[in-house]
């Protein structure tokens, strides 16, 4: 028996609410339903100005299509379960966490500081321990990128504790 078949058989034995196919379908339908409800809050064009269909009609149709197709996917997965995916490793969650830190630091302190911190954090958590390479990805490379975008593309980066020093604000 192949690994995929084994994984599919294991998936059949799980209660339905633990199965990936249920969790994925449920999430899509839930989000789509919320969005569908929000389309009812869109402004309506008065009949005299209305040409063709209302602005909300097209997104409504799309959301109903997504919900219907997701139900079909779920129905088909009952007969033919998806293979169980491997558990996500710690490094995945650390990378995801670094994105959140990136957002917080770039909003509160500095855009470039956020890039540097994310780079060193990701590189370290993925197993890099050599100091030179950590400096390369977290300081040297972002500086090269900064100078390149600043001088060649004439880009002005958002203000922050480091960029303000550079821009002499």
């Amino acid at each position: 028996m192949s690994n995929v078949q084994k994984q599919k058989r294991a998936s059949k034995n799980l209660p339905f609410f633990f199965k990936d196919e249920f969790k994925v379908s449920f999430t899509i339908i839930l989000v789509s339903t919320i969005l569908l409800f929000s389309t009812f809050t869109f402004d309506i064009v008065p009949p005299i100005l209305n040409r063709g269909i209302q602005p909300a009609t097209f997104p409504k149709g799309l959301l109903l299509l997504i919900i219907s197709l997701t139900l079909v996917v779920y129905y088909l997965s009952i007969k033919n379960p998806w293979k169980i995916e491997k558990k996500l490793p710690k490094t995945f969650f650390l990378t995801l966490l670094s994105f959140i830190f990136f957002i917080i630091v770039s909003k509160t302190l500095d855009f470039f500081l956020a890039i540097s911190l994310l780079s060193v954090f990701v590189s370290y958590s993925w197993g890099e321990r050599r100091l030179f390479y950590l400096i390369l990805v977290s300081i040297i490379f972002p500086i090269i990128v900064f100078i390149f975008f600043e001088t060649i593309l004439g880009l002005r980066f958002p203000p922050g504790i480091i960029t303000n020093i550079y821009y002499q604000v």
Partner: protein
Amino acid sequence: MENLSLMFAPLMSSKLMIVLVFGTLFGLILGVLPGLGPTTGGALILPFTMTLDPLSAIVLLTAIYCSATYGGAITAVLINTPGTPAAAATCLDGYPLAQKGEAGRALGMATVSSTIGGIFSVVVLVFFAPLLAQLAYEFGQPEYFALAIFGLTMLASIGEGSPIKNLIAGAFGILISTIGKDFMTSIERFTYGINELSEGIGFIPVVVGLFAISEMLTQSTLLDKVFKRVALKAVKLPSLLDYKKTWKTILRSSGIGSFIGVLPAEGGTVASLIGYSEAKRWSKNPEEFGKGSVEGIAGAEAANNAATGGAMVPTLALGIPGSATTAVILTGLIIHGVRPGPDLFREQPEFLYGIFGSMLIANILFFIFGFFGAKIFARITLVPNKLLWPMIFAVSVCGTYSLSQSMLDVWIMLFFGVIGFFMRRYGFSVVPVIIGLILGELVEGTLRQSLVIFEGNWLLFLTRPIVVTFFILSFIALIFPLLRKKKI
């Protein structure tokens, strides 16, 4: 004939030649690195193209497209990991042949067949794109609506993975395109009071998120994967016997690849799989496939490179992208103020034939670089992911920010990175999202304008023969996977 002479204009311009050489080298690097590829690379370099004139910008993007598609074969042969999804079929015979100590022969065959496939597809592009554009003169709003629907159903049908999941992803892409002010009434949709969303969601943050950031998350789950790299002494040109064995396969796969490329889908990947299986079906020695057959390498590589020119046909003639990478090229055209379609062929032939010529030259350039430099490019695979991906993140963030200097674009990029990771994990391809996003405005716009023309009567769609033809083809595209019992 006069137009064909315009194809060689890039050879006369030192600037275009520099752009071509840079694009080809950069594309090779992107192709060699697993996880990157022409789509992500094109999206990352798009902000830089703003410093170039429109022709140079598109030449750069098309050179990247051609050479990155070939570059995937180097990694496929040497480390048994496709550098790009289109090179997946190349692993099947490329790596076993390399393990037998014939890595140079495997790469030589991949290089020659990729070049022939690529050049064949440029010929197809030169002859068929103007014909298709001519046909498009007959198209009104209803016909464009039906064409876009046909494109999306084809994408669902012949794309990778489950057709229903592809349709969901395509509808999701169209839904993203509805965010912002409605173009007909200026009524805001899904903006939730965020002013920056009034203009809609940009293409680049979504592409970079779905491809680069989601790939970074994917790589974070694969850190324990160890690649076994086969040593390469030098790339060898195929022997006369190899040519005798493979010329029919190369020509057949070039035809298959060009045809599949024209259809809206992730052409290269599907083309290489079909090219490979057809090579096996027609081979006198099918038992050699999977054990290091040069026919297998030729079949897959000629097909995936032939799909590049094919995918450019609908992109330039109709403004409908033939693949995710051509969607990036289409965006490049639009942000440089060039509107693809029939008028482009009439008004700017020098621009179009410049693109055709540069694709032809890019195919020759990657042959030269691949032949002499594969050993060097192979060394790029030694750059560890723990250094590479933080650097790609820095470029992704700055590139995304640079287009409209908005931090919201960066958040959107990260959001779609996470969405893209989970989509791929659960078997939803991200390519239909991209195509849906780029076709969304066309689908909704043409539908609503058609309804205005038809005074709200939907049945009048059925009075137009071209529309009916596209609807029938869409229906066939939808039921085709069910008929061949493809996995849902």
